[in-house]
């Protein structure tokens, strides 16, 4: 990958719905944004993480927000 190009992650923000493990085969109940930023910073030199406004994963009245992470190594 060219230096400066992007690695992108879109995934769920931390949520309390433990039943997603059984219902949807999830391993993690979403992610804390600061934690993701910290983990990504161990590998990439430039990390941007933000909540995606106005969008959520909705299932049977439950809603988990999404985040967007962009990572680069300059």
């Amino acid at each position: 990958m060219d230096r400066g190009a992007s690695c992108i992650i879109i995934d769920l923000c931390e949520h309390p719905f433990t039943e997603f493990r059984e219902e949807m085969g999830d391993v993690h109940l979403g992610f804390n944004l600061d934690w993701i930023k910290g983990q990504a910073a161990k590998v990439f030199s430039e990390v941007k993480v933000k909540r995606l406004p106005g969008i959520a994963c909705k299932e049977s009245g439950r809603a988990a927000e999404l985040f967007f992470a962009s990572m680069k190594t300059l």
Partner: protein
Amino acid sequence: MEKIKDIILEIDMKRFLKELRVSNPETLEEATKYFSEKEASTRSKILRGYFGEEGINTIIETTAKELTSLQEGSNILDIGAGTGFFTIAIKRRLGKELNFYAMDVTKAMLLAGFKDMEKDRIVPFLGLAEQIKESIKLSNLYYERLKVRIPSIYQGILSILTLHHCEDIIRYLRAYILSWIGEQAV
């Protein structure tokens, strides 16, 4: 004429995972059953149900915006692409001659989306998010007789709604960077 689909179909997953040297092939194969049995054939409907059209468009637009500066001919890898739902939409949205590769560990997902991916000239292959370069190397061995080669270097790597299914996040992120640093990959 033999196609990638035929090769994916004939791959024995137990053997594939052993060849990848995953520590828990049985557990992993069991985990993919959920997607094989419950999601593969109806993935698009499920995603639309989760996010609605507006949410789906937000995901596509946000990702496309980040990749918009890529030059034609660039390689883009979608990790955990499933049926290629987002891969196809993002490729179409970008509207450039970009080379997209769709990796997933669930055979049924890749096969369910194969026809659509083929139309959009997206190359699907089996692989594990935590072991990207090993997956590419192994899939290239399987694809050798088709003379299809999955590249080892990418200008863009995507992971949409895959991370929360992965056991080892740091290994996952390190696998990203190993695909990024070409000389260390494959």
